[in-house]
């Protein structure tokens, strides 16, 4: 907790500060939150192998550099953030979240403004939606088309969402994500002939009508574990899946392949909840993870795309070719309008639910 200083003889000041440090060290033995949190950042994460990757690529080097320990807790639920903040008992310093929370969070008064004197946002891929006053992007990932290799060949497989909607040419089950903002509405519109640059604001009614055409063949997945299981078991003909999960499934020799055309690029974000106990520590960790080295390190440890373009300088091309936002996707992806989603998720979900149970 205290950094070692070179001895210059004991002055009154050092004596006092040493004594104070001793006292606070004594106090730290008691489970007292304010003293205990001084040298650590509490990071709410999705956990699993992703957390392992972050620990190696980010947390360990960060702790080595700054002496600030990174403590993880799992389940970065928006509801939990709200409950903590409203109760005035924020325990988390950094929360990783889906980008809709960049806008939902501030609207509900749940987030701290980030300190861009500490965090350098200039190297981040320029897009107006990627950075807000309350958030920075973490990594890119994509929802990609995956098809069953037992059923379709490399030469003859669905290459566009229009193909996926063609049940005669490419028969079989379609695996779609049951969450409203899980890409189904976007691909339904693309399948219906809406040009990618005219996608947002989504014409929800048209999307649902388009989904009607394949409704009987859809199997919905509710969690990422579920789609992984479907992929490994070869339980569908074609579907949409997070690229990281698809690559992991292929690694487990799942009978699937990825088609990068018309993939939907999105990102995960970092936010700092209001009243975070170690705000400064949070800012310095965020500054660290957005350096090109840290972004390259995470891209090597986990197949997610760096949000800092310069990171690609130190990533070998064969690795770059599987990262979201990498060369294989260039010109073939659509960046999800997460701001539109944050503003419309409630209403659209109501319509989507009504459609599902109609």
């Amino acid at each position, binding site marked *: 907790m205290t950094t070692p200083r070179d001895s210059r003889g004991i002055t009154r000041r050092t004596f006092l500060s040493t004594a104070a440090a001793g006292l606070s060290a004594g106090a730290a033995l008691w489970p007292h939150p304010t003293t205990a949190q001084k040298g650590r950042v509490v990071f709410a994460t999705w956990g699993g192998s992703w957390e392992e990757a972050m620990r190696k690529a980010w947390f360990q080097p960060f702790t080595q550099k700054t002496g600030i320990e990174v403590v993880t807790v799992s389940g970065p*639920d*928006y*509801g*939990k953030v*709200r409950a903590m903040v409203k109760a005035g008992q924020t325990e988390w310093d950094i929360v990783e979240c889906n980008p809709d929370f960049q806008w*939902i969070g501030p609207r*509900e008064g749940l987030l701290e403004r980030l300190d861009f004197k500490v965090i350098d946002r200039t190297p981040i891929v320029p897009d107006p939606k990627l950075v807000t006053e309350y958030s920075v992007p973490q990594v890119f990932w994509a929802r990609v088309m995956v098809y069953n290799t037992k059923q379709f060949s490399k030469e003859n497989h669905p290459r566009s969402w229009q193909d996926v909607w063609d049940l005669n040419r490419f028969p079989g089950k379609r695996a779609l994500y*049951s969450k409203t903002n899980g890409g189904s509405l976007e691909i339904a519109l693309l399948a219906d002939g809406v040009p990618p640059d005219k996608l947002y604001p989504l014409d929800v009614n048209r999307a649902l009508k388009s989904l009607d055409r394949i*409704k009987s063949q*859809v*199997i*919905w997945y*509710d*969690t990422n574990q*579920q789609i992984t*299981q479907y992929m490994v*078991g*070869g*339980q569908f003909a074609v579907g949409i899946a997070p690229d990281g999960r698809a690559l992991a499934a292929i690694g487990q020799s799942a009978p699937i392949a990825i088609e990068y055309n018309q993939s939907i690029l999105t990102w995960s974000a970092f936010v700092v909840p209001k009243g975070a106990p170690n705000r400064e520590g949070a800012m310095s960790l965020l500054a660290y993870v957005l350096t090109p080295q840290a972004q390259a390190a995470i891209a090597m440890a986990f197949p997610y795309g760096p949000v800092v373009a310069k990171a690609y300088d130190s990533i070998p091309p064969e690795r770059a070719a599987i990262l979201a936002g990498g060369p294989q996707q260039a010109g073939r992806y659509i960046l999800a309008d997460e701001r539109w989603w944050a503003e419309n*998720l*409630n209403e659209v*979900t*109501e319509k989507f*639910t*009504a459609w*599902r*149970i*109609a």
Partner: protein
Amino acid sequence: MLLFLYPLATLVLTSVYGDGGWTLQHYRRLFTVPAYLKVLRNTIQTAGLVTLICLALGYPLAYRLTTSSGVLRGVLVIAVLMPFWTSLLVRAYGWMVILHPNGLLNTVALWTGVVREPLELVHNTTGVLIGMSQIMLPYMVLPIAAVMQSVDPRLLQAASSLGAPPWRRFVSVYAPLTLPGVLAGCLLVFIISLGFFVIPALLGGTRDILLAQLIDFNMSKVLNWGFAAALSTVLLVTTLAIYAVAGRMLRIQTLWGSFR
């Protein structure tokens, strides 16, 4: 008691108080948007079906459990209690593996020629009912078995000696005596089923959305706690109403019991 009532009061309050004033907007939305009423109906229907399935399977099972002895009894007790010790998620995935079109059950059924086309057993309401019934079965079996255990076998012997055929013995003696257990089991299964969440999400299809899933979405995804509280209140009121009705039936039952 206070620890129990305070959160409940807060819940109800959250559903009617928001944006600095009293409001019924959440309830208006709930009762005017047809989707929500359909989800509510879906929820009650699913819970009802699960209760019936559990009763149909659980009653004979409980009977077998109370009348058997030795190894068979041990095996049955473990079979009934086993689901209690396994994680819900594990069981849901287990069912997926079994029920899937290329899964265990369909493979065997196709191989033996029982069916020509694989049966659609998962990602639809069938899947939800199978998964939920398996989980809820112990809640049905245990209260029924407890009551069956206390039935005096001499009453049945008396009925036989008075010339009652087996069906008559069951209808006029055994069934009424075990009815309190049946009602308790049904109540337990139904009420717990109303709040189900994981199974419909994993084994269900397009249409299988239950109330608990909507509550979770509003709680943790769009942070619409007022609406989530309104949905929860409706679920709570439904549960209490059913409980009140069932409670009355149970009391009538005990009255009968004392007359006999």
